[in-house]
């Protein structure tokens, strides 16, 4: 008999308070990787999840909250042979109400002085996740993905 599919059996919600503390995102990440479900992952996989969460959280802190104070919640759960992630914040709406395309900043044939120093974040997020969704719900930004 095939057992019924389990919905996210174990979901953990973490809180990150950004603003004056420059290390808020780093501290939140260290808390997340040392608890289930991330702590149970093989190290190489866990590192990539940490990277994606860092990119998302830094974006919220820098652009959603403009470097000012704000709360971010991260809910992680086991789902369909991977992890489900839901990040909620009350910052500014995503520009144009949708996710950036995340094109890789070009490097081929680019002169040294013009090499990109930023714009990598969404490309990394899109490269490493599936089922990426963004929705604006009243005053909330809701970003979800599988990894």
């Amino acid at each position, binding site marked *: 008999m095939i057992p019924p599919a389990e919905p996210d059996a174990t979901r953990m919600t973490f809180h990150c308070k950004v603003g004056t503390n*420059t*290390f808020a*995102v*780093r501290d939140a990440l260290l808390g997340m990787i040392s608890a289930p479900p991330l702590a149970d992952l093989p190290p*190489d996989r866990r*590192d*990539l999840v*940490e*990277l994606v969460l*860092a*990119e998302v959280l*830094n974006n919220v*802190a*820098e652009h959603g909250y403009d470097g000012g104070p704000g709360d971010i919640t991260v809910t992680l759960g086991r789902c369909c042979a991977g992890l489900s992630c839901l990040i909620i914040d009350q910052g500014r709406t995503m520009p144009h109400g949708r996710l950036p395309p995340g094109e*890789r*900043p070009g*490097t*081929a044939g680019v002169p*040294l*002085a013009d*090499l*990109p*120093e*930023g714009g*990598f*974040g969404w*490309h*990394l997020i899109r*490269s*490493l996740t599936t089922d990426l969704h963004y929705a604006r719900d009243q005053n909330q930004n809701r970003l979800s993905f599988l990894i």
Partner: protein
Amino acid sequence: MQLQTQNRPKVLSVLVMEDRIDAATAIQFKERMRDLTQTGDQRVVLDLSRVMFLDSSGLGAIVAVKKLLGPDRVLELSGLTATVQKVFRLTRMDTIFTIHPTHSDALSHDPAS
């Protein structure tokens, strides 16, 4: 941002003593590197063997350091951990830098050859 340096006639080695170069410390890293490389003209080998985590801010700071050194001064990297290497690969920044497996590989490499 702790950096340990070894100044040789042909190579300036910089060992990053932190386990993360991230959004919180990328700017300090860039500024420390600028201070360390202000004088001198040797190639710079940046050893990242202790860096377990590098995000896009950290990557951007390393690119900024390469740009600060200018076209006449080489910046090479060594000791990239698997995940850090993946960040360079996904962004194709592994094509922009010479990356050595270890610091001693970097030291014995002669870019003129």
